[in-house]
């Protein structure tokens, strides 16, 4: 079958994207659109003493100017976010209220203060230059590790602390028991550096309020139009039925585009007030100051072992920055998103984890590809390497010794992850071959001749995809000979149109050319789970399968009537085209003819099926990534010689798309290890590297060709496809593989923790004994 599941079919979305016909949010031009721009705080922490925009209002083309006070007086409250966590003593968390535009106080550089709307973008910019805002600057706190110090300034006086939540999971008592009986405890102090998400497409929104039906249409990037609808409605203060979200092509998501931002609400407010479309598009400079950022953890972790090197328990204490305000999932990412993942792929009975999530005068932090799980994987995979070093054991053997084995599945003892399937041993064996691990010693020896320090690093990562939830789909067959699939998921580059077509072609036996996939319009389906947490494939597949079955059931009734057979005797077959057939005969009628019949019937009208697919279990993509690199002793320059990724994603639907996800994921993870870092000046809270000129975006010439392989033996048992999901895996894996390789290369030198990003300068200092 052409286009079936498992084939590396070429993408159906590409034709429009390679010819310039993609439709991104900023491409939209509704008639009579007004353009908005934001005046943002230049200070990290300050009281606003006055705002004067009289002169600006008189500038040509200016339509109106809004401040936080104005929005407040018109009943706007604050952004709708997740804030249901409790402190470990049972008291409620300190949930900040993020305003649409700042009132009273600004809390980070880039905090939006005034919204200027004009006929054109340039007119809005010209006018904004005449706005006078007086600030009384306050001392700020930038460093995550210092947020809880008693002498640090408070972002929210009403809380009396910068802690948003002081959270724990697991039992402290169990850990102290383990600590007591352990033969050895290894420790690491880690900083998981702050990342700027930087999809190449900047954010943009056009809001269009329609007075007659009292309804907003918001054209905005998202990772699911329904979740965006919920947040937009909640933040502007209307019911969901009064908001329609349209998401067209999205130029990269990585978690960021899941979030609802104050700028979107400001365009909605202005559109309603002015009764015309209002558009805002971020510049890159603005994106650095307003897109939610990722990671930013400071962690102390310990692993306890017995004499033989069997792991007994892990303790992880983290301080995680949430930035100046809670963002949408800001509180969830460092706590629940990664909870329990610190045991990795190992049989570790005890895990005790504390997280203090803190406010700092920085851009809010939220999900970034992997969201909580790369941070956890970094902790355990660094710990294991440290333990191997302390015990004088080979890091690979120490891992193998402690792996959860296939026969352990279902036992779910202690803190061990509740896996449905695994094959860590075989994946590792494949990886050893793929990376020529055994020949490394020889290669290292040879590299000494070139004055190089060679290192090899292993990362056996595991990820937990988002399990629990629901996804919607609708399948509509038209008598004209086409099938439309609607899904609640949202592609931000993954190729959903192609993959969902493959799933439908396999199910219905129709021609791929006759299938079209639709998502992004919240009116098309009553709800949708959206894309995030690497779950789209198995969720959409489940929903499309269910919707198809409902459609087929309808079809069988119509076909039975037409073929003068009983419903029980009619089946759907794809053996020789998409046909309803009387069992055991060659009496049949094809799918599209049945659709035409349905269209003629007043009680059916169309041949369609709609479903809500519910799913409980997460999946556990995992794999062994091995990175080999060389350091130039003279300069500290690092070169990746070889990067080998062997992944277990269960069954693979389209190997081409999966490889693409892994390549991109690896580079994002390596970017963090090699150079990406949102660097704030401590005194002033200014983002020092707020442009592509200064921020280390990974570029093509920093990487070798990655070598990929897949172990498809351990299919996932909790979904019909057998697939585990692959969207975030590369990012979870690669950061640690790189860092472990650096530590290996520098093993002859004496130094304390070396934090990411690992720059040639840091290495050069170590080599030359400079602190």
């Amino acid at each position, binding site marked *: 079958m052409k286009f079936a599941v498992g084939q590396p079919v*070429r*993408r159906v*979305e*590409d*034709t*429009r*994207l*390679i*010819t*310039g*016909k*993609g*439709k*991104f949010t*900023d*491409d939209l*031009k509704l008639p009579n659109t007004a353009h908005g721009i934001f005046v943002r705080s230049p200070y990290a922490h300050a009281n606003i003493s006055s705002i004067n925009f009289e002169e600006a209002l008189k500038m040509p083309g200016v339509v109106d100017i809004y401040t936080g006070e104005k929005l407040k007086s018109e009943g706007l409250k604050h952004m709708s976010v997740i804030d249901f966590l409790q402190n470990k003593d049972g008291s409620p968390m300190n949930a900040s209220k993020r305003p649409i535009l700042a009132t009273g106080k600004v809390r980070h550089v880039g905090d939006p203060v005034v919204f200027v709307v004009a006929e054109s973008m*340039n007119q809005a910019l010209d006018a904004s230059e005449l706005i006078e805002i007086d600030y009384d600057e306050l001392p700020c706190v930038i460093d995550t590790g210092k947020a809880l110090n008693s002498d640090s300034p408070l972002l929210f006086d009403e809380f009396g602390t910068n802690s948003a939540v002081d959270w724990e999971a697991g039992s402290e008592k169990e850990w102290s028991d383990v600590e007591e009986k352990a033969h050895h405890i290894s420790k690491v102090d880690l900083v998981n550096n702050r990342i700027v998400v*930087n*999809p*190449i*497409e*900047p954010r943009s929104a056009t809001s269009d309020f329609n007075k007659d039906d009292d309804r907003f249409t918001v054209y905005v990037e998202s990772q699911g139009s329904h979740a965006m609808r919920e947040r937009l409605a909640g933040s502007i203060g209307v019911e969901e039925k009064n908001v329609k979200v349209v998401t067209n*092509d*999205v*130029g*990269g*998501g*990585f978690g960021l585009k899941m979030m609802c931002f104050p700028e979107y609400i400001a365009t909605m407010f202005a559109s309603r007030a002015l009764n015309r479309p209002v558009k805002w598009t971020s*510049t*890159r*400079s603005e994106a650095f100051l307003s897109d939610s950022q990722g990671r930013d953890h400071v962690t102390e972790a310990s692993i306890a072992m017995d004499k033989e090197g069997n792991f007994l328990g892990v303790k992880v204490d983290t301080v995680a920055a949430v930035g100046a305000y809670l963002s949408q999932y800001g509180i969830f990412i460092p706590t629940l998103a990664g909870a329990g993942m610190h045991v990795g792929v190992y049989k570790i009975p005890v895990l005790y984890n504390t997280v203090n999530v803190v406010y700092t005068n920085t851009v809010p932090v939220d999900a970034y590809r992997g969201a909580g799980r790369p941070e956890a994987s970094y902790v355990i995979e660094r710990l294991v390497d440290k333990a191997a070093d302390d015990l004088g054991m080979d890091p690979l053997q120490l891992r193998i010794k402690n792996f959860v084995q296939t026969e352990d599945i279902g036992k779910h003892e202690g803190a061990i992850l509740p896996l449905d399937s695994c094959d860590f041993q075989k994946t590792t064996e494949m990886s050893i071959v793929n990376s020529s691990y055994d020949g490394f010693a020889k290669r290292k020896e040879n590299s000494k001749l070139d004055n190089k320090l060679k290192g090899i690093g292993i990362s056996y990562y595991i990820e937990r995809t988002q399990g629990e939830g629901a996804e919607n789909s609708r399948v509509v067959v038209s008598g004209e000979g086409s099938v439309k699939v609607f899904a609640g998921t949202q592609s*931000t*580059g*993954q*190729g959903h149109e192609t993959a969902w077509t493959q799933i439908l072609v396999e199910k219905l036996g129709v021609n791929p050319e006759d299938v079209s996939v639709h998502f992004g319009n919240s009116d098309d389906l009553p709800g949708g789970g959206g894309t995030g947490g690497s779950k789209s494939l198995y969720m959409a597949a489940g929903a499309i399968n269910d919707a198809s079955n409902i459609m087929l059931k309808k079809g069988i009734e119509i076909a039975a009537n037409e073929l003068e057979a009983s419903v029980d005797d009619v089946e759907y077959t794809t053996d020789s085209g998409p046909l309803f057939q009387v069992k055991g005969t060659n009496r049949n009628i094809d799918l599209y003819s049945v659709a035409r019949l349905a269209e003629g019937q007043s009680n059916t009208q169309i041949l369609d099926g709609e479903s809500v697919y519910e799913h409980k279990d997460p999946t556990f993509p995992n794999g062994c990534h091995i990175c080999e690199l060389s350091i130039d002793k003279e300069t500290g320059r690092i070169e990746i010689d070889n990067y080998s990724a062997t992944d277990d994603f269960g069954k693979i639907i389209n190997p*081409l*798309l999966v*490889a*693409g996800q892994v*390549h*991109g*994921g*690896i*580079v*994002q993870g390596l970017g963090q290890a090699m150079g990406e870092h949102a660097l704030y000046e401590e005194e002033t809270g200014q983002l020092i590297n707020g*442009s*592509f*000129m200064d921020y280390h*975006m*990974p*570029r*093509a*010439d920093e*990487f070798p*060709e*990655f070598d990929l392989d897949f172990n498809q033996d351990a299919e996932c048992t909790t979904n019909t496809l057998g697939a585990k999901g692959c969207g975030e895996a*590369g990012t979870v894996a690669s950061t640690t593989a790189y860092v472990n390789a650096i530590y290996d290369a520098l093993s002859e030198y004496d130094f304390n923790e070396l934090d990411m990003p690992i720059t040639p300068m840091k290495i050069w200092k170590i080599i030359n004994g400079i602190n």
Partner: protein
Amino acid sequence: MALVEIEVNGKNMSSEVEERQLLVHFLRDDLNLTGTHVGCDTSQCGACVIHLNGNAVKSCSMLTVQANNASITTIEGLADGDKLHPVQEAFRENHGLQCGFCTPGMIMAAVDIIKRKPNLNEKIVREELEGNLCRCTGYQNIVKSILAAANKV
């Protein structure tokens, strides 16, 4: 305002433009050629690459008035009618794009690289992509696409 005469994708046009207007905004806003993208404001990302008199340039880094009397090709004008340019074809064949936002700039840059560098190899392609950022693909399939196209052109 200033009057400019520019040939865009084979068509001559004259327009009144603001002197301060960037060429990329002329293409996107005035001509509705939205295939050329804006990904930054510091001339780093390459999402805006077009051909000006046959050479790749970043259209965010020059004024429309500087393109007066020039001939411009954008991504919309690269294919020969329905027949894709070999570089477009290679990007599709080799999964050289994911979200597709960097892609028009990548393809326009790639056509120029192939023209300028007769003996391309992986290393040269990677170095030549210095001015084009992609956040999705990890570059591997972009490099592969360009090498595949180089063999065909």
